[in-house]
């Protein structure tokens, strides 16, 4: 299978690999996928006010899954939570030129963003 240049770039130079303290109240964590399916994404956001000031990811998965999550962290940094929630998997597909068999990687990335935001919001609700 031939990979697009953008997938290769994210695979070779992934942006924002790493982990944040998941117990911090400013951090939202999303873990989606399952090892049996060959994809697990962990995406974390650090939020100040309503803004995502930092994002990190770790992914077990194919090159397209790594690229999708790397791109997702790049895109959500600096966005408000509401803006980040609007990101659709189809935009990731388009940006990375993912073939049909790899669309699930982009879906997973969208789910990871939403899951991290939901985790952060839940923490805030529990606080108040």
């Amino acid at each position, binding site marked *: 299978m031939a990979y697009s240049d953008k997938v290769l770039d994210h695979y070779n130079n992934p942006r924002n690999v790493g982990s944040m303290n998941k117990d911090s109240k400013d951090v939202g964590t999303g873990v989606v996928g*399952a090892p049996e399916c060959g994809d697990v*994404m962990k995406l974390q956001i650090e939020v100040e006010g309503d803004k995502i000031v930092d994002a990190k990811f770790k992914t077990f998965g*194919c090159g397209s899954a790594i690229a999708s999550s790397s791109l997702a962290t790049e895109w959500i940094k600096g966005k408000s939570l509401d803006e980040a929630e609007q990101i659709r998997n189809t935009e990731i597909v388009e940006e990375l030129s993912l073939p049909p068999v790899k669309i699930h990687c982009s879906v997973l990335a969208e789910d990871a963003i939403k899951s991290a935001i939901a985790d952060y919001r839940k923490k805030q609700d529990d606080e108040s």
Partner: protein
Amino acid sequence: MKTPIYMDYQATTPVDPRVLEAMLPYFSDTFGNAASRNHAYGWTAEEAVDKARQQIASLMGASPKEIVFTSGSTEGINLAIKGVAEMYGAKGKHIITSQAEHKAVLDTCMHLEKQGYEVTYLKPDKTGRTTAEDVAAALRDDTILVALMWANNEVGTVNPIREIGALCHEKGVIFFTDGTQAIGKIPCDVEADNVDIACLSAHKIYGPKGVGALYVRRRKPRVRLVAQMDGGGHERGMRSGTLNVPGIVGLGKACELCEQELEAEAKRAAELRDYMQELITSELDHVHLNGHPEHRLPNCLNLSFNYVEGESLLMGISDVAVSSGSACTSASLEPSHVLRSMDVGDDLAHSSIRFGIGRFTTKEEVEFAAKLVIENVKRLREMSPLYEMVQEGIDLSTVQWQAEH
């Protein structure tokens, strides 16, 4: 050293220059049809084919009269299984095979199931092996055929063919073995090993693509097959079609070289295979060997790198040409059916890589490949949420994953 380094020798092999040299005259100088009985062109072609038949038979302890030429193992498998089923269908309709067989065997068996045959798909053990005891337990009065591969193409596990063959002979059941990965790589003797039908493919043993042979026993018992292709009645009526003389000459030469060099080559391959495994496992933890630690091909090393997905690893080691059991690398999006049948978990199946050591593999190539694998597994594990969880002491089997698949 030329990159990408070829380490996919179970998929196919390059034509050995000595094989190519033997073939060349038969394309345009000596181009006769081996079935032309009336002139020198035909006689020369027939002589060349007869020599090849001798070379092939010699490699596996058969008689030249027991060799039927085919286009390769897929055809050989179809001819063997369907040919036996049709010939002996009145006697019984039961066939025994294994879940770890090549798709050509499994799909042929499924085809027969639609026609009223019953097939038992034995589950191999965790190393991919099927024993004579497993076969004995599945045998029935109406069993006509046992089809079990000599060695597995994905994990290299070698089945106890001699014992299974002895059992089949004792019970009067025909024994077919797919010898594609084994014949020419390990000692194979259809007499001593009690084999009735065996197939091989030239391109797996440094011969050309598109030609193969089927061994069909003539004595004790005499095995008969219903031809699957109608025509001029070539090959004792079992396989019609003008013989591919240059291909057959190449297959013959390839078999001759394998026979001459088998012992030295197997030893060298096993040393390189073990060296590669040692290099990798001394640097990386959580590496799982797929297959049998002893009963395996000398030229096959199948490893799973826990917490790293196979396709992403292939991307990182693109300077090495290998295959993965990961679903992502297959058209079906299913992980390897062989690893599944061995109860290798889907997570490990997704992480598997098959390294093939070939006639032209050098120590330098093995070192280069091992280094690349080590670097990339380390890099991808740094990126892997699973590896991180394991480092934190989390048991992954207790995690509630959010996935619909």
